[in-house]
């Protein structure tokens, strides 16, 4: 009798436990909704047609494709897919940082015959990865975000040149020069390209050494994953030309995907502290390099044509001082020069970097403030003005940067 009552009690207990569980779950949203658009980096630019959506999806699939030995990975490589390094299309993590070596000045890489410029530090099982040759200087690169690049791709050369001030005529201590490079033969220059001594203005990458997104993508397949294409058929492991391991079509789909990934959407723009920070950003001359507004010229993709946007970069190289000089460079950049990184999406960095900040070219800064304090060279004046701000003003500036 007594036992039976315990039983009934137990049964009731289990049933109520079950009901409680159900309620708990239903409170946590039974069918999880999409995170708010402004809080994520992936997604398309506005105004894509249905055909363009289809191409975007093809490129997206290629961007997430994981390569294996069977599909051409390696023999030496750095990672197995684009998405491994550009998680959620955002900035990368130190575990995906890559190393480049062998170019100590603006006159070219002297270690090309010894595996330069990029270190393939991973190898298929049974093989040995590459090592940095003795005597080669090197630099580490943490992956940047991949968002809004279509807008940057369609800024005209003339607009970029107009921002440059090589002789510092305005006397603000900030010059800014483009990276002039002889571009590979497979690249079709922009219709309005400006050419000097057979060299073009390059704009992508930390040193601004890639001309356009095709250039960047072909290099990524080849150097990061060991995947050859007709554009770059040289195998990183043997140094020999081999059969293409990926189709041109797929590469073009990825380029289209990169072009049509939306620009990060700024948040909290009406917040008074954010507004104060924005004003300070201009006042202490951050905006002299981190240009708040750029515009595109004509683009065959309607959503990118003649648009104004806010990347906070001038796409130019700046002397950042000895603290950021790794003794390695690309193209005509000096070893102490870096291309201004876009600051849009900065506040979302942590959600692709595993909850932490890894800023500057090699992720050495662990907070926005640390990043600012590492500025030197042409940015010394700007940094000094930052240091002179009150702590409230500093907070406002950082809040503004986090809102981007």
């Amino acid at each position, binding site marked *: 009798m007594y*036992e039976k009552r315990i*039983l009934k009690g*137990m*049964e009731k207990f*289990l*049933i109520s436990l*079950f009901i409680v*569980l*159900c309620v708990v*779950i239903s409170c*946590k*949203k*039974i*069918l*999880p*909704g*999409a*995170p708010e658009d402004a809080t994520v980096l992936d997604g398309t630019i506005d105004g894509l047609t249905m055909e363009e959506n289809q191409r975007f999806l093809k490129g997206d699939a290629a961007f997430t*494709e*994981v390569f*294996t*030995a*069977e599909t051409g990975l390696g023999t030496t490589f750095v*990672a*197995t*897919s684009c998405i*491994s390094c550009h*998680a*959620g299309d955002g900035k990368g*993590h*130190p*575990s995906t*940082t890559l190393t480049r070596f062998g170019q100590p000045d603006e006159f070219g890489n002297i270690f090309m015959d010894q595996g330069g410029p990029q270190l393939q*530090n*991973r*190898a*298929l*099982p*049974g*093989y*040995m*990865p590459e090592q940095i040759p003795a005597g080669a200087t090197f630099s580490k690169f943490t992956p940047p975000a991949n968002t809004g690049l279509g807008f940057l791709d369609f800024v005209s050369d003339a607009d970029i040149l107009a921002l440059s001030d090589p002789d510092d005529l305005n006397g603000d201590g900030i010059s800014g020069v483009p990276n002039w490079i002889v571009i590979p033969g497979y690249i079709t220059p922009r219709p309005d390209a400006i050419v000097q001594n057979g060299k073009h203005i390059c704009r992508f990458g930390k040193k601004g050494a890639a001309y356009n997104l095709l250039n960047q993508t072909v290099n990524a397949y080849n150097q990061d994953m060991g995947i050859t294409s007709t554009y770059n058929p040289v195998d990183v492991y043997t140094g020999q030309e081999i059969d293409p391991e990926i189709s041109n079509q797929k590469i073009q789909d990825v380029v289209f995907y990169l072009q049509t990934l939306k620009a990060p959407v700024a948040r909290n723009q009406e917040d008074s502290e954010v507004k104060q920070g924005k004003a300070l950003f201009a006042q202490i001359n951050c905006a002299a390099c981190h240009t708040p507004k750029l515009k595109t010229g004509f683009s065959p993709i309607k959503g990118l044509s003649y648009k104004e946007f806010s990347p906070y970069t001038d796409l130019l190289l700046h002397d950042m001082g000895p603290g950021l000089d790794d003794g390695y460079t690309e193209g005509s950049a000096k070893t102490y020069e870096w291309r201004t990184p876009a600051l849009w999406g900065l506040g979302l960095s942590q*959600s*692709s*970097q*595993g*909850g*932490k900040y890894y800023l500057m070219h090699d992720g050495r800064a662990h907070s926005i403030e640390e990043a600012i304090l590492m500025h030197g060279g042409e940015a010394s004046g700007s940094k000094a003005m930052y240091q002179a701000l009150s702590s409230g003003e500093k907070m406002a500036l950082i809040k503004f940067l986090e809102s981007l």
Partner: protein
Amino acid sequence: MIYRFLFVYLFISLASQAQVDSTLFRRVPKDTTKNAMNMDAVYNRPFLALGKSPVAIGGYLESNWQYGVTDGITEGHQFQARRLTVFLASKINRRLKFLSEIEFEEGGREIAIEFASMDLELHPLLNFRGGIVMNPIGAFNQNHDGPKWEFIDRPISATQMLPATWSNTGFGIFGKTFHKSWMIGYELYLTGNFDNSIIENTENKTFLPAAKRNPERFEEINSGLPLMNGKIAVRNRKAGELGVSYMGGVYNKFQDDGLIIDSRRRVDVFAVDYNTTIPTINTTIIAEWAWVFVQVPATYTQQFGTKQYGGFIDIIQPILSRSMLGWEKATLNLACRLEYVDWNVGTFTETGDNIYEHLWSIAPAISFRPNAQTVFRFNYRYQQQTDLLGNPPALTGMFQLGFSTYF
């Protein structure tokens, strides 16, 4: 191919006879002495015998509807016929049995011989088994028939970490003995093995199930060395069954044509499984946990982990057990499954931070069993999956409704 043809022929001919007169079939009574352990699952199923023929046939079908959403994105409504499995058993002789299990998945696009073995009994404690055997690792692999479970999805740890229905060509011995309310059983096999795909695959993580996609494993061992697999299980009539299992071996191709091409690398898997039914309240608990260790070259990407663990626990509570809707012995159950898998246990060399790549999920369920052979089930799943770096997890919610039945 010929086997497949013969099999289909036999199946159709049996089926067409069934149309003629279903009384020709005789249900082979299932062993209900409760002496069954997980290792007996292959035989402990309903079979149909045709007249006086020594051949018995059985199988099950499962089908369902599902609707799931991950971070606001849905694939829409899905109707799925997940699998049709057919067993054929025969008693060749008093001490010689044959049993096979063929599974058709994805509408017949995937056909797999999951089990096809001959068992020779020398003594209850010493049986010989050879053919395509189901590797006894954990309990789910051996005891995976759809109708036995309250959940439409197989446990994630058993399909995405351990390979579910992992079978190989091999040979070995097994046996069982009992004393009063205790029972102990063992199994020991040498079988085909894993291959390089467990660390070279498009999942971008160490993934044992990748080796299932290699059909050549039934003919050839990649490393040339067998997988050793053993299990010991103890059952007490009151306390339930506890199993401990291990499988391991060298998985990669380290020599070819007499030349050494790589160093040897091992995969080792340990599992414990437990199940019991609490006598008076009839609550059933089924749990399994496994650890996977894989040697990965230090110069390979950290994406592929050297250590994994995960498992699940099912709690099933019958709430009504009586005649319902005209079924005499129908049961209505509430159930809940909790699962967790970490595919990459370790820390990043660059930062010392945890490598995530893990998942947890909770699935409450209602199941209705009109008879012993059939289950209708309604499941909801809430799942959180975190990437390698520990970025905000992908959240999934999913409803499923379906049935699974032996025939």
